[in-house]
């Protein structure tokens, strides 16, 4: 149950928001000249990363504004929220050790549930 910070209204339950897919996919200006493959890219191709994704959300039940959010899809950790038009912030995230692997912690992976002998304890900084 995400707790999302609307840039205007503050932290709200996910129930108030509508998801708008991957962010920073600009609608091609000169679609006329665009090859079919590139238009298909705009329509359909997505990075769908396991890691940090920039995504669009709309505070549908609140101020009805669209905004962008950085989230780690390997952990669902929300890393940043920023307004449309603002540049994508630099963030550091708890990323998977291997491309298809799981984040060291906070993932849904079944293998990552137990600390390896000698693994550092204590809460995540």
């Amino acid at each position, binding site marked *: 149950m995400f707790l999302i910070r609307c840039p205007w209204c503050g932290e709200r339950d996910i129930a108030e928001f509508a*998801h708008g897919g991957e962010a920073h996919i600009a609608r091609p200006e000169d679609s006329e000249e665009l090859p*079919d493959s590139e238009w298909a890219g705009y329509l359909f*191709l997505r990075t*769908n990363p*396991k890691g940090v994704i920039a995504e669009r959300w709309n505070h549908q039940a609140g101020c009805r504004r669209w905004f962008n959010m950085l989230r780690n899809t390997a952990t*669902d950790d929300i890393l940043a929220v920023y307004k449309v038009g603002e540049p994508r912030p630099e963030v550091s995230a708890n990323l998977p050790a*291997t491309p*298809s692997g799981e984040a060291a912690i906070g993932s*849904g992976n079944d293998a990552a549930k137990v600390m390896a002998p000698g693994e550092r304890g204590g809460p995540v900084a």
Partner: protein
Amino acid sequence: MQRYNVVSLIREGLRGHAGWQPAWRFPEPKASYDAVIIGGGGHGLATAYYLAKEHGLRDIAVIEKGWIGGGNSGRNTTVIRSNYLNDESAAIYQHALDLWKTLGRELDYNIMMSHRGVLNLAHDEGEARQLKRRVEANRLNGVDSEWLEPEDVKEFCPPISISPAARYPVIGATLQRSGGTNRHDAVVWGYARAADSMGVDIIQQCEVTNIVVEGGAVTGVETTRGKISTRRVGCVTAGHTSVIAAMLGLKLPIESHPLQALVSEPVKPILPCVVMSNAVHVYVSQSDKGELVIGAGIDPYVSYTQRGSLDIIEHQMAALVELFPVFARLRMMRQWGGIVDVCPDASPIISDTPVGGFFINGGWGTGGWKATPASGHAFADLVARGEPNAIAAPFTLERFTTGALVAEHGAAAVAH
């Protein structure tokens, strides 16, 4: 392969079950294989099985990063049906249904295929119109499918409420009698055992970290257990399809969403069939153990955490209680999530790629389980011959460029 039957059970029973063989080996990865299948789920193991059985390819490795069947295969609600709208879909899902019918015997492993019937409910005129259109198309495609009036729905599925006073009254339903459910683990294990017995190496706890490409073609894969050379790689990693493709710099028309499911405590038989409703977003069946197995819609965002939101479950339960008031006091015993790779047209991708020798079988979204045998069958054919057969052809990546999508949102709107 050691035979499984009553006789062997009794024999082993008398000797303390000392004589059972391992269902599969735990081989070390070899330096090279004719073909490498990434992903030890139902689709991946089926692919390896048919490669070995029908294309004589025995030098195959199935690489699984965890334990076989631990992804969507072990998390889905095992609804089997083929009543899809488009000819292309009907072809592949019906092919699967035909294979399911005899798979248990073929694999010598009881997959508990139960043709108990699948109801798709209509709650308003628009839905009824769409479902009737599907029934008609199904009939002409040789897919068993019929339209039931509310009273017939009630007769086929007694616990359901057909009260006209309901917020979403049941005004009819389609029924596919040959549809039903089966046992997901058994399918995975059955395919694994059969493939292993034909020489396929099933390598668990081994994760692909990179795919080696030379001159535009695959030459091998790097794994957490060393490099493996091969000229053919089949990617069958469901939710992680985009992640593997990204190793090759490929972007796909896929987004990976959480899909949740849950089971109730086991109760004596009460639900004789599978019931699905798009309008209220819930689908339910009862397992052989007695648990009600319930699914709903996907969460709207991309996530690989195999977790979803509770509010999806709350809506799902409200919908279930609305349809089945007598289930209200039963209890949710266990909930979980999977990662479903969804395509824009709610149809799968079975395709070659710009990279020579690299093939993708994914994008099954919420409906992959029912297709498992046909998916493996068609994909094995693609991996073996390098080009799609008639069943796979409509599902290549090309369709997203030409626009020839196979739109199945109506038939696949609710997870199943």
